[in-house]
């Protein structure tokens, strides 16, 4: 990486990190500040509405107290509640009072819907609406927790109780209602000058529609700035809302607006917020899920009764929209600054570091011996100074170099002159030596040596051919002449490749694949053996197998190739005969043996008439003998095939369990004969094996056959198969005669048979175990055994496991 790029990268990274940090820090700080401002605003909106609500409450209580002080009302009620007055009179008074209330009270205040007079048992005894007489307001109180009748019944003069708002059906419409209760006092005074309380109260029903709309807009009742603020609030926010709620009923009064029909909603405020008011009489502000299920930021003002709350809230999405907008703008701004900074840093680092780069480049060229290089730096300041010093230094170096070159040239000329003199002296010395040689007559003995060599070459049994660098024949012995059917005189100076053809098997060797060019090219000797299948064909068409050895000749003035070859027709025939022997022996021995087996089988099956006991027994001997001979021949053939190297391993992936079962099944006649049971115990998840099927079959057959042979009737043979590292361990265990301690070492030797084995089964071949060992070692495995004479023998064989294939 170039210096300027490194600089720019580091600088940009720092700027980006700084920018990122700034964005995160500012976002967090701004968000918390913004939230706090929003909440404070909402709280003050809610507070203003609360003030309006309280003012409204005061106005209703004042109105109610004023009405309850009406003298006629008090006098009439006193008379009605007098226990001495007859019920008829009471009824009459009640109707008159009702009429009085309707005409003289209701018509003066449109906010008032009904005025009731309620007895101490909570039953309406008189009302501006006659149909309400007898209504149990006490029950209604308990049910709705609305009119505070019980409080009022024990109140002092001038006290009134306002209920929280409730919804009530009036003329089939739901309206928010406020109820105010005031205790009635007699017009008379007691002995202390106190007004005597009556056992009744006045209950005034206020319709609060307009009022509610007013204070929920932020204080229409009180004409103060709160109203204007709340208007701004609802205009500013689409989702802004101020509402009154009452716990625990969950009644919510809100201003009708788009998407909301009524002003009375049966919905619940969040329980945790309701608790703040009910238990602590405290206000609340923060984020919460409102009665519509929307995440909002809002404030709650708690009214003193602990059940009425005023909410001002805005959907969080809208409330924070300005913030997120601002945040986006800040991020864009910072990204812009970042980009600018990165480009600027690249530009600056390039322009500052360019001169330095120039100097580095020049130094590089000088390192490659280009002393003409000069730094092209026109800058002032340190950089320019550095470049100038550098260039001056280079000038000096060039001057010194030129001087030393001139001196070297001078020296060189002197050396050349001296060398010429030297060569002359050498020539003189050589001439003198030649003179001496002639006089000592060395030539005679050289001639003798040459003759000796020639006689060896002439008489040798191998053909000998020497070619020079141009591949022309320059020497050939009589054997070669005879074999190749040419005379040296006829082909001297010709490329032998144009006369004889060479084959490897059926394929003709051409061009550079021929031995002479190959030797020259490869620069080393080549040996061709009998198994390489080389043939030479003479011009007459005679073809014979050869073994060849080539040698590269590199004497000073005679470079070439020496080629010695031998006609191996006879050896080859012998070799072929040897390899044919195996298959011939197989056929020639097995066919007559098959005859013996099958004829004795047929004689024994009774189809040719019954044999007497002795005849049948003898026939069985012949049959058994043929079987044994088959095994011996098979073993012997396998052994010689493996030993001669003619056996080609043909590995395949096999299922060890299936293979062993199949092999043991073929030994069933032998097993049945001696009533020996076998158990094959493969381990779970045994891998497949990778081995030549013929070899494995020979090994298993020989081991199991041995176990059968040397185990008493009714014995047991166990064959375990286990996974071990990269192989499968096959264990053949019998409870037979075992192997004597002294003879354990010789057990794998050919034709060796242990003493106890010989006495038990006299006619074993002693070949089985040596074949087993040969085969197991050929596949790269190991075979060993554990044995105790008289108790049994266990053989262990390792078989390579197939790679990445499980035997499941």
């Amino acid at each position, binding site marked *: 990486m170039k210096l300027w790029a490194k600089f720019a990268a580091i600088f940009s990274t720092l700027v980006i990190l700084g920018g990122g940090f700034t964005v995160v820090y500012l976002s967090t700080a701004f968000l918390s500040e913004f939230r706090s401002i929003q909440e404070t605003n909402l709280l003050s909106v809610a507070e203003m509405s609360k003030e309006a609500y309280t003012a409204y409450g005061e106005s209703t209580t004042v109105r109610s107290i004023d009405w309850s002080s009406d003298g006629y009302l008090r006098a009439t009620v006193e008379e009605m509640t007098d226990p001495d007055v007859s019920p008829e009179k009471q009824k009459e008074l009640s109707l008159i009072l009702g009429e009085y209330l309707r005409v003289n009270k209701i018509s003066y205040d449109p906010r008032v819907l009904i005025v009731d007079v309620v007895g101490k048992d909570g039953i309406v005894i008189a009302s501006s609406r006659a149909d309400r007489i007898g209504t149990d307001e006490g029950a209604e109180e308990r049910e709705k927790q609305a009119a505070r009748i019980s409080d009022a019944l024990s109140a002092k003069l001038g006290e009134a109780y306002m209920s929280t708002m409730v919804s009530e059906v009036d003329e089939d419409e739901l309206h928010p209602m406020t109820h105010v209760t005031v205790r009635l006092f007699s017009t008379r005074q007691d002995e202390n000058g106190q007004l005597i309380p009556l056992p009744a109260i006045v209950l005034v029903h206020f319709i609060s529609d307009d009022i509610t709309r007013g204070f929920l807009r932020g204080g229409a009742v009180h004409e103060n700035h709160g109203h204007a603020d709340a208007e701004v609030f609802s205009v500013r926010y689409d989702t802004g809302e101020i509402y009154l709620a009452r716990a625990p009923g969950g009644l919510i009064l809100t201003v009708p607006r788009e998407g909301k029909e009524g002003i009375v909603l049966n919905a619940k405020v969040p329980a945790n917020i309701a608790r703040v008011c009910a238990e602590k009489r405290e206000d609340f502000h923060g984020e919460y899920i409102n009665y519509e299920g929307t995440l909002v930021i809002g404030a709650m003002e708690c009214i003193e009764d602990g059940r009425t709350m005023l909410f001002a809230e805005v959907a969080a999405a809208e409330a924070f929209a300005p913030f997120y907008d601002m945040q986006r703008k800040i991020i864009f701004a910072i990204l812009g600054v970042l980009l600018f900074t990165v480009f600027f840093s690249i530009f600056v680092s390039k322009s500052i570091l360019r001169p330095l780069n120039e100097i580095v480049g020049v130094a590089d060229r000088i390192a490659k011996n280009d002393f003409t290089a000069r730094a092209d730096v026109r800058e002032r300041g340190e950089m320019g100074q550095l470049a100038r010093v550098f260039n001056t230094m280079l000038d000096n170096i060039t001057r010194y170099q030129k001087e030393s070159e001139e001196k070297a040239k001078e020296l060189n000329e002197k050396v050349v002159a001296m060398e010429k003199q030297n060569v002359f002296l050498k020539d003189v010395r050589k001439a003198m030596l030649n003179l001496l040689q002639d006089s000592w007559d060395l030539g005679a003995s050289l001639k003798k040596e040459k003759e000796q060599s020639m006689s060896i070459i002439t008489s040798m049994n191998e053909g000998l051919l020497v070619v020079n660098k141009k591949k022309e024949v320059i020497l050939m012995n009589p054997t070669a002449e005879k074999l190749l059917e040419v005379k040296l005189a006829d082909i001297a100076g010709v490329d032998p490749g144009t006369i004889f053809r060479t084959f490897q098997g059926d394929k003709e060797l051409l061009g550079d694949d021929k031995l002479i060019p190959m030797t020259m090219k490869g620069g080393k000797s080549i040996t061709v053996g009998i198994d390489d299948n080389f043939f030479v064909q003479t011009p007459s068409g005679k073809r014979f197998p050869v073994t060849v050895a080539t040698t590269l000749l590199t004497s000073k003035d005679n470079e070439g190739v020496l080629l010695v070859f031998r006609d191996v027709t006879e050896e080859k025939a012998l070799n072929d005969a040897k390899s044919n022997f195996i298959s011939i022996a*197989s*056929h020639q021995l097995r066919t007559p043996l*098959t*005859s013996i087996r*099958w*004829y004795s089988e*047929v004689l024994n099956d009774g*189809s040719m008439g019954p044999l007497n006991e002795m005849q049948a027994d003898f026939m069985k001997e012949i049959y058994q003998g043929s079987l044994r001979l*088959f095994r011996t021949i098979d073993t012997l053939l396998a052994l010689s095939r493996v030993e001669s190297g003619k056996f080609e391993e*043909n590995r395949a992936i096999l299922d060890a369990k299936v293979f062993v079962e199949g092999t043991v099944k073929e030994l069933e006649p032998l097993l049945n004969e001696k009533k020996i049971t076998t158990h094959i115990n493969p381990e779970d998840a045994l891998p497949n094996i990778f081995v030549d099927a013929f070899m494995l079959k020979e090994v298993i057959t020989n081991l199991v056959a041995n176990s059968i042979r040397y185990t008493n009737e009714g014995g047991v043979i166990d064959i375990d198969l286990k996974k071990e590292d990269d192989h499968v361990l096959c264990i053949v265990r019998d409870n037979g005669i075992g192997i004597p301690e002294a003879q354990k070492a010789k057990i794998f030797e050919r034709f060796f048979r242990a003493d106890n084995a010989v006495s038990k089964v006299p006619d074993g071949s002693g070949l089985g175990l040596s074949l087993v060992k040969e085969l197991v070692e050929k596949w790269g495995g190991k075979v060993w055994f554990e044995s105790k004479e008289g108790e049994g023998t266990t053989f262990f064989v390792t078989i390579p496991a197939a790679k990445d294939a499980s035997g499941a």
Partner: protein
Amino acid sequence: MQTDSPSSSTSTEDKKKKTLLILVLEDDPHLNRIIVHKLTGRGYNPILATNAQEAIDILERGEPVDILWLDIRLPGMSGLEFLKYVKEQEKFSHIKAFIVSASGSVEDQEKALRLGAAAYIVKGNHDLDEIIEQIIAE
């Protein structure tokens, strides 16, 4: 020929015997004599050929041969070459062929199965009864 399952009833077995024509191609006079004897004794109908040409003649003259019993090493055309010839002729390709050879060579075995032999049996390793059971079972 479509053979029935090995567990067929005795009557089917008898019927099969009468109709089963087995062409035995075996040059060794000692072996072919005992094979023919055994097959006849067990109630099958063997025809003997001692070389491939003889066997071809028998097939060509329209003998309804059901099973071929073939040796490999024969004078002239080998058993495997004969098998190849038979399997290439559409009119004979349905005949089940069994190689019964003295050679246990893996190459011969692979070649025989590739050419369409129903099974490869190594001669000396089995009794005649075993071989016949296997052929009938196939």
